């Protein structure tokens, strides 16, 4: 176990090193010039060169990368070109909002997805089951920004139940969390259905039925815990999928998280911020996958770590 963990952590660190290099390389070769953005349109060639020199952007790629990397391992992500603030500070100030949104998204997708999956499994083969499975396909195929705008239009503009956007109270969280979670709820309902169908076929369920237990008790106490276990491990993988979704959801709802930060940074070619957000996202994805792999054998002892 400890050996496995060490090996996986080293692997994860190498992956993150690779991600940092590729992102750095991409931002280096891209035709957008951050110095022009900082200096403004009317700057003289001399000013532009001065800024370039100040930021060290006239150095060769590998020198620049080495400087960035040695800062990064000490927790220094550099300064934003345009806001003159530490990138780490910027990200730290935005991260709580994003984590809250992701937590909301996970709760929504599990609540909706697992419930629908269980109902579909119980009514297997009947019209309700087929209807729910079509619904799950619709959920998976719905573009997040359309879902977000639709929820905004119905529940904020027309009905006035929720605020139109922003951040602060629980009411602000509801619509963005549902928007983020709806795609995942489609996947979870399909996985939960097939997991539940498998469990309901097992001998011990037949035994429970033969003992004369109520349907409700068999479902909730005997089948559900076993059916839910393999699905819990998937939550780690969701983190990666959410990392893309937050850019869209935060933009639709004006949610002040790192998705918005990244989006603004990209538009202004603020390279240190783009690098910072990419590294934080990649770390979250790698840790999420690691978590999923670690949880699986705890849930199902038949699976061994290698």
């Amino acid at each position: 176990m400890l050996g496995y963990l060490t090996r996986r952590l080293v692997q994860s660190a190498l992956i993150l090193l690779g991600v940092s290099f590729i992102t750095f390389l991409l931002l280096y070769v891209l035709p957008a010039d951050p110095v022009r953005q900082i200096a403004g349109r009317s700057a003289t060639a001399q000013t532009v060169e001065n800024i370039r020199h100040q930021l060290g952007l006239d150095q060769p790629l590998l020198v620049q990368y080495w400087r960035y990397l040695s800062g990064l391992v000490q927790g220094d992500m550099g300064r934003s070109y345009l806001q003159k603030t530490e990138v780490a500070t910027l990200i730290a100030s935005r991260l709580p909002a994003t984590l809250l949104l992701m937590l909301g998204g996970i709760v929504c997708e599990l609540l909706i997805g697992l419930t629908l999956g269980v109902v579909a499994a119980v009514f297997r083969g009947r019209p309700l089951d087929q209807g729910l499975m079509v619904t799950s396909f619709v959920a998976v195929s719905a573009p997040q920004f359309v879902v977000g705008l639709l929820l905004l239009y119905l529940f904020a503009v027309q009905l006035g139940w929720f605020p139109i956007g922003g951040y602060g109270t629980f009411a602000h969280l509801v619509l963005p969390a549902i928007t983020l979670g709806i795609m995942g709820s489609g996947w979870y309902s399909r996985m939960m259905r097939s997991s539940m169908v498998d469990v309901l076929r097992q001998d011990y369920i037949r035994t429970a039925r033969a003992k004369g237990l109520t349907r409700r008790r068999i479902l909730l106490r005997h089948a559900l815990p076993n059916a839910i276990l393999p699905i819990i491990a998937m939550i780690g993988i969701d983190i990666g999928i959410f990392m893309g979704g937050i850019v869209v959801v935060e933009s639709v709802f004006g949610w002040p998280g790192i998705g918005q930060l990244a989006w603004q940074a990209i538009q202004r070619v603020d390279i240190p911020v783009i690098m910072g957000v990419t590294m934080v996202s990649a770390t979250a994805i790698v840790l999420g996958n690691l978590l999923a792999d670690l949880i699986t054998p705890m849930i199902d002892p038949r699976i061994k770590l290698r």
Partner: protein
Amino acid sequence: MADVADLSSPRAATAGALRRLMRRKLALLGLAIIVIVVGGAVLAPWIAPFEPDEQLFDGLTLYGEPMPPGGAFLMGTDLLGRDLFTRMLYGARTSLVIGVVANGVALVIGTLVGVLAGFLRGWVGAVLMRFTDLMMAFPALLLAICLAAVFQPSLWIVAMVIALVNWVQTARVVYTETTSLSEREFIAAEKTLGASSARILFRHILPHLVPTLIVWGTLGISVTVLLEATLSFLGVGVQPPTPSWGNIIFENQTYFQAAPWLVFIPGAAILLLALAFNLVGDALRDVLDPTQRGND
């Protein structure tokens, strides 16, 4: 000698699968949607009532507001007084071209990487798969936005950006399939008979990958369509005035409380097209891959 494996010949399996596919109602619904969208896109110049960029004189109300659906404008008009139905038809071209091209390129890259890694093993395979792991850790949408934002995207650049982000899943699936195929008896038999690597690869491994590629190719179009719409919605995808379902929403979203049709008609179209490819892809998986069956 090549006919030894004919009992499980991929071609015969595919023909049978097509018949089974036709019996599935949801798959037929998906196919119907695809046919309608493709038809609309191909016939756009003939069935569109106006030009896509034409700012119509009576396309705005006296107060300069867009016209709601009905009357001369089947789906209403947009903020510039252009006919939405016409733009939807031309927008279908964008979605389909990007869906097919981007997904095709991603499929080719993914297959190449997966087959090479699975067939060659050794250090080439190891390097390729580690690179794939690395790509998995990239926040894909962030990467796509970043690339698209910097390149002043044309239709083809958007397609390439999407392809560069989307080949990873295919590579992993193809890799797993190729490694398990390489260990099967009929491949071992071919090797014993002295068949060259190229022969094994092209005559035996690639044909057996066809069902997988058909399934992933179909499901992948749905992912591509959604990604293109998302990029265009953020304003870094296909650029106006070329209509795309995503950038129609991007152009009009500030006004969506007063003119919701400008957001929800293209939104519904994106959903339906993605849904159609998902339905067909899922049905294909059921009929082409017997191991996936049994959940019904």
